[in-house]
Each structure stands twice: as structure tokens, then as C-alpha cells.
């Protein structure tokens, strides 16, 4: 009974709290720009409205156009449920779950790109191509970060890997993972969630033809993914699993807030990069993770 309640609580955290993050980012951006900005809960209103709306489908779209966002949403949720939540720990932990997490995100990517290609639109083709191509570099950076944590803790299970802090290379790892977070969640400098010029975007152009409930699923999934990466980043860097209950909860919530505010600040002070420079930036993130890995490896030996 306890475990079911705990599982429901965990589910609620992911489902209910996730849409808060984009709201906070927008608030930060508005604050920096001296505007009042949309309410923090704006995404909740948007989701509710989209869920009630009807759907306009492209004449070319197959059933996969609706199934894609649904499967992608499930994949992100499943990946999120694998992640330990500070003091709550994890409900399901096994050897190799970290690889499953990486590949679940790949499943979500596959489904999103599939749904984008359904419409035969050149713009969505562009977006899908960019998404899957840049993900190659992002995935290399993520797996290197995973390797670092695994070397440090001698474990292949998320709950053990994320419990202690990342040690000497923590700063490198944090910057590397933060860059990947920006890339994977369509934030500046990789992508601009505010532009409406389809040519310049990656993720947002993927969903040009989606409307109504499928679009709601996509937006909610994106919010969950942002929360997932923030939680992963915070737990990789801070020793959340080794703190007492209240401190751990505080560290986790505070860390996620710091990451969110940082995303908003980056978005306020940086312009979007030219696409030519995106691979360069992602390679930098990868290299930062490689240096963290080298520190974990050689530092452990010394």
C-alpha cells in the first residue's frame, strides 16, 4: 500500500510539477527584460485549453501522427520514473537502468521525428534532420557523463550513481550536462522557443502541424524532459543521496530552481547561435564531460 502511494506521489511530481519549469523560465526572462511576463502557471492554462480543442490533421498524415506523440510522452515519463528523486529514492532500480534511460529518450526522439515526417513538409523535415543529427553529439556527451559517474561509484545503477557528488570533476560535468540540457530542451543558444520563423528552429519546427490534444502531449512531454534533465544534473553534481531527508529535498528543489533560473538567464543574455556553430558547442560539452571522465578515472587511480 505504501509503495503504491509512494509511486503515485512520484508520478504526481513528474506530471504535475513539470509544467512549472517553463513558467519560471519565462518569468526570469520577463524580469530581466523589465516586463511583467505571463503568469508562472501559463503552461497549465495552455495545456488545459489544448486538451479541450479539436484537431486539424494534414491530409498526408497517417495514424502514426497521433501515436508518435503518445509513445514519446510515455517514453519520457518512463525515463523520468527511473530517475531517483532525492529523498524519495527510486521505485525501480536495477543494474543497467541508466542505459535504459538514455535509450528511452532515444525512443522519444524517434517518435517525435517520425511524427514530424508524417506531413511531408520541408520545414518539419529540416527540424527532424537537425534534431536527430545533433542528438548524436548530445548522446555522446550524456554517455560520457554516465561513464564518469559509473567510474566514480563503480556501479551501473542510477540510484547508486547519483547518490554521491561527482567529485573533483563536478564543475566540468555540470557545465557539460547543462549545455546538453539546453540542446535537448530547445533552449537558447541552440534553439529559440520564442521565434516564429520556422527556418531557424529545431524542436519547435517539429511540431508545426500538431494541434489540440497531441500538441498538449508534446508540450507536456517537453516540460517533463526539462525537469528530467534538471533533476539528473542536480543529482549528478550534488550529493543529494547522502544528505539527511530535509536537506536532500531542499538541495534537490533548490538545485532544480537554480538550473531553471540559469536557463532563463542564458536565454536573456545570449543570442541563438548559427547552426554551423551548434555542433561545435555540443562537441565542447562532450569534451567537458570527457575531461570530467579523465579526472574520475585518473583521480581514482592516484
Amino acid at each position, binding site marked *: 500500500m505504501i509503495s503504491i502511494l509512494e509511486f503515485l506521489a512520484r508520478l504526481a511530481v513528474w506530471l504535475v510539477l513539470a509544467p512549472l519549469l517553463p513558467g519560471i523560465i519565462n518569468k526570469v526572462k520577463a524580469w530581466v527584460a523589465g516586463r511583467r511576463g505571463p503568469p508562472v502557471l501559463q503552461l497549465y492554462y495552455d495545456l488545459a485549453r489544448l486538451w479541450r480543442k479539436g484537431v486539424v490533421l*494534414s491530409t498526408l498524415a497517417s495514424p502514426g501522427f497521433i501515436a508518435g506523440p503518445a509513445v514519446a*510522452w*510515455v517514453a519520457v515519463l518512463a525515463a523520468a520514473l527511473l530517475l531517483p528523486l532525492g529523498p524519495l529514492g527510486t521505485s525501480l532500480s536495477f543494474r543497467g537502468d541508466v542505459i535504459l534511460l538514455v535509450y528511452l529518450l532515444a525512443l522519444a526522439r524517434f517518435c517525435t521525428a517520425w511524427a514530424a515526417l*508524417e506531413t511531408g513538409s520541408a520545414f518539419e*523535415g529540416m527540424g527532424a534532420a537537425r534534431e536527430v543529427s545533433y542528438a548524436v553529439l548530445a548522446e555522446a556527451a550524456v554517455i560520457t557523463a554516465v561513464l564518469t559517474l559509473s567510474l566514480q561509484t563503480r*556501479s551501473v545503477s542510477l540510484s547508486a550513481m547519483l547518490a554521491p557528488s561527482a567529485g573533483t570533476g563536478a564543475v566540468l560535468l555540470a557545465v557539460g550536462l547543462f549545455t546538453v540540457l539546453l540542446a535537448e530542451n530547445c533552449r537558447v543558444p541552440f534553439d529559440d522557443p520564442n521565434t516564429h520563423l520556422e527556418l531557424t528552429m529545431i524542436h519547435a519546427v517539429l511540431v508545426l502541424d500538431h494541434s*489540440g490534444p497531441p500538441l498538449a502531449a508534446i508540450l507536456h512531454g517537453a516540460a517533463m524532459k526539462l525537469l528530467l534533465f534538471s533533476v539528473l544534473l542536480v543529482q549528478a553534481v550534488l550529493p543529494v543521496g547522502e544528505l539527511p531527508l530535509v536537506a536532500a529535498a531542499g538541495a534537490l528543489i533548490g538545485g532544480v530552481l537554480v538550473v531553471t533560473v540559469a536557463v532563463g538567464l542564458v536565454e536573456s543574455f545570449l543570442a541563438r547561435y548559427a547552426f554551423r556553430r551548434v555542433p561545435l558547442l555540443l562537441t565542447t560539452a562532450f569534451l567537458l564531460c570527457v575531461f570530467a571522465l579523465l579526472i574520475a578515472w585518473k583521480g581514482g587511480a592516484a
Partner: protein
Amino acid sequence: MTPGLLLATSACGILLSLTGAFRAPRWWLATSLVSTLTALAAAAWVLATGGAWEWRSAFLIGGEGVHLRLDGVSALFLALLAVVGGAGAAYSREYWADPAHPASARLGRWWWSTLLLCMGLLLLCSNGLHFLIAWELFALCAYFLITLDGQRREVRAAGWLYLAASHAGTLALFAFFSLLAARTGSWDLGPMREQANLAPLFWLALFGFGVKGGVFPLHIWLPSAHANAPSHVSAILSGVAIKMGIYGIVRFSGWLPVPPAAGWLVTTLGVVSAVLGVAFALGQHDLKRLLAYHSVENIGIILMGVGFAMVATAHGQAAWGALALAGGLLHVWNHGLFKSLLFLGAGSVLHATGTREMSRLGGLWRVMPWTASLFALGAAAISGLPPLNGFVSEWLVYLGMFDALNQPGAAVVVAIPAIVLLAMTGALALACFVKVCGVVFLGASRSPAAGHAHECGPWMRGPMLVLAAGCVAIGLAPFVFWPALHTAVAAWRGTWTDVPAPESLTTLGLFHVALAALAAVAAAWLWRRAHRGGWARAGTWDCGYAAPTARMQYTAGSFASIITEWFAWILRPERHAHRPEEAFPRRAAFEEHTPETVLERVIQPCARLVMWLSGGARRLQHGRTHAYILYLILGLAAVAVLTLAWGR
């Protein structure tokens, strides 16, 4: 029923099917299916019980007594051969039917049966001489199947290239088996790990089997052969025939001692094959050629598992070696299943539209919903996505490598780059298969041929469904298949018998089931929710442009261009562009082609050099008899001088 009886039934079945290949296609199909099912049963028996079957006879072939053996390793490959062989036989009934191919359909059936027979014998032979005979026969059968459609010039060229490459490999195997027989004093094969002087022979075996397996620099024959063969032949070539190379490497790295560097080299070859195979695949526009390059990639993943097992042997660490090997061997099955499925799907597309050129296809899901969904399943599986089988085997390989990472020892140096590159390979394969599915099956049709396509019939759909069911079964219940892997691992290395199943395999299976169920529920729910008030249909939003056409869709080349640009240093794409000029341009065109770099930049220049040198030597042969008599006298004089000077 013992495996011996089952195998005898299977052999009878395949021999009977030979009698029906020309005149009685139904009898041929029935006997072939019975034969493959009994072979599958025999393999399953060995894999489930863990006992090997062995049979020696006094009957001599080439002066050697017949010695057959079915142990865990060979049973694993035999099971795959049976499944793909049966599926391909049924598929060919409609795909390569008699009315459409009056001459080659019968020959195709005949060679199909002989190919299955030879590959089966190859797996059973436990005598070096007989192994070589079966190897050569199997290579020849495959040649005749590849060139079934010999009217077309490129088919004949692909056949010759295959034959030449295959024999280069066979030459190395001749040397390997002769030296082995010379050093051991017998052609008989079996575990002989204690004879350390046999270790250097492994290099010969690695080359010979590597050519057949399509390991990266030796893969030159593979793309054109797979692309030009009939699709059911491509399926068995890619699904099973190239696995015979893997079988050889696994078999002889298990039976013979290997040099200390072998594990590292095999792993490195695996990593290189995986990354470059998928890079070349991204550059292709031909659907079947693209799938062929993915075979190179997957052979690489298998070799990473096998190579790590060899490294583990050198370090004496059974636990992670067994995991990596189990992952590699499971990937043999998985790749056999999903790649055959994909080739059969590509065959349906080719059958329906008459083209393999992806830029002429598009929007096929509307007319070919079965093919499209089964191909999509195969694409998700080969990209290593949960909850399908490709992920399970890659996960096992990952676990083996992560465990190597966390053990003291030199394995870390290889494990780190191998893990990172395996992850990148997965992401690249995903990009490639999103491209294939999107360009071929989604969007609008790019040519009239794609618009007039039709769905394939039950004989083509059935085998695809069987293969897809295999992919789903291994994905959802991987723990069911662990005993088979355990038997194979124990047969590879007798001391690794007590390796426990990874306890998380069951959890992973349950997670996969839950994920699949949840995904189905969510998709159905979202569908109902979106369909609530009926949906409005409208043209695709093209940013205000009023008249989008099918030719404005993203093409395969443009989709992959970001990644092919990163790999341009090895892909060397050839581009021909006519830019639009003046105010009212007459014509503009852009063409891009990715050649087979190793063949065209390395092998062919070398071949030209050899031809040039031989051209010089050929001047000696001119047809003038008196000059030949002069050669004879000079030769005799030279021999005389040699004998007199150094003869004693």
C-alpha cells in the same frame, strides 16, 4: 526425439525439397518448411538441455571420417538459419514467382535448398577438410542466388565482386586449416586450447572469416551483393550468410588459443565497423544498399561483444566476458531477425514500385499499411530502441563493458571509447532509420510508381509477421532466451558454465512489457481524445506557401546531409551541381553519390597496379616459337648453373 533424429529428418526434408524445386513448387515449399522446423527443433533441444550432440561415422569423404557435432554455439546459428531460411522460402513463393521469372524461379528454389543444406552442414562439420568443402559450396550457392537475375549488368558485376572477395577469404581459410592440420597432425576439430603454438593461426582465420562477415575494411563485396540480389536472398545473406563469418570467429576463438592482442583487435574492428558502417549507410540513396551497410554496423556490434569476451578470457574474468559474449550472440539472433524483416520489407516496396531509389518513393503507408508498420517495427528494433530486441542485446554488451570498466585492469582503455562510440552508433542508426521510414513510407509520393503501388500478398506478409513476432518476443521476454545464450557461452568456454543470469534481465523484460502496454494505452487514449468530434483535414502547413508539391519534401540526401558532412573525410561524396543562373534559369540540378570508398580508393588502384605490372610481364608471351625455345634454353642453363654452383 533426439537431435540426431531431428537433424536426419531435416536433412531428408531438404534433400526431398531438391526434387521438387523444378516441377513442384508446393512440394518444395512444404518439404523446406518441414526441414527448417525440424532443424529449429534440434537446435532448440540442444540449447534448452545444454547437452551437445556428436556423431562419428566410418564413412570417409576425402579420406576423412565424417564427424558431426551440434553444440551450443552451432545450435545458436542453426536456429537462426532455420527461421530465416523458412521465412525466405515462403516469401519467395510470391516475391520471385514463376509467372514473373519463368527461368530463374526454379533455379532460385534449387539453389535456396542447396544453400540451406550447405550452411547447415557447415555448422555441423567438425572436421577441417569437410568444413572447407562446405564453406566453398555455401559460397558458390550464394553466388548463384545473387546472380539469379543475371540479365542485368550490375547484378553480374556484384556477383563477380562477391565471388572474388569470397575466394580471397577462402584462400586464407585454406592456409588456416592446412596449417592447423599440419601442426596438430589431424583434420579433426575440437577444443585444443592448450597447444599454444596454434595461436598465430587466429590471424588467418580472422581475415578469412572477416571477409565473409563484412568487417569494415573487408566489406567491399557486401553492399553491391546485398543490393542487387533478390530481396529474400538479401535477407538470408545479411541475416545468416555473413553470420557464418561470425560463427567462424566465435568457433575458433573458443576452440583454439588466441594471440594476446586478438581481443583488442577484434573489439577495435567491431567499433570501426559499427561507426563507419552506419556513416556509409547514411550516405546511401538506394534502400537495399543502405540496409547492406547497416549489416556492417551490426556485425561491428556483435564483434564488440565477442572481442570483449576474448579480452575477458585473457584477464581471466568470466563475469563480464560472459555478459559481453551473450550480448554479442543475442545480437546475432536479433540482427538476423530484424535485418531479414527489413530486407523483406524493402523487397515488398521494390515489388510494388519497381524501384529501390528512395528519392522516388514516399507516402507508401497509405497503400502498404502492413509493410509500412512492419518495416517501422524493424527500424525501431535495429535502432536499439526499447522495448524491442535490439535494445536487449546492446544492453547486455553495454553491461559487459561497464563491468569491465569497473574492474581493475587494462580493459578500461578500450571500454571507454567503445561505450561512447556504441552510443553514437545507436544515435546514428536512429537518424538513418528515421530518414528511411520518413522518406519511403511517409509524406506524399514522389513519383507515379510510388503512387500506383500495392500491398503485398499473404505469402510475403506472413514471413514478415513471423520475423516481427520474433523481434517482439525477444524484446518483451528476454529472460526466456537466457538459457540458450548460457548454453552457447558455456560451449564457447567450458569453464564459464556457472555464470548466473543477470538478475536485472527479468526486471528489464517486465519493464518492457509495461512500457509497451502503456504506450498502446496512451496512443489509443490520445487517438480517442483527438477524434472526439471528428477531425478536420487540411493541407500541410508550409509557412503560408499556397501550393506545396511532393517535390518540395525533404529528401534522403538533405535529411542526412548534416551527418554526412561530418563524415565527408571518409565518405568522399561525389557532387554534381548545376546551379540556377540568370533571371529565368533554364535548368538546375543537384546530384550526390556516395561511392564505396574502400573499393574505389584502395582496392581498385591496387588492382590497377597489379594489372599494369602483369601487362609488362605479358610482353614475354607473344606467340613467337623461336623466342620460347630461347626461354627454354636460358631456363635450362640457369638451372644448370644453380645446380653446379650450389647443388651439393
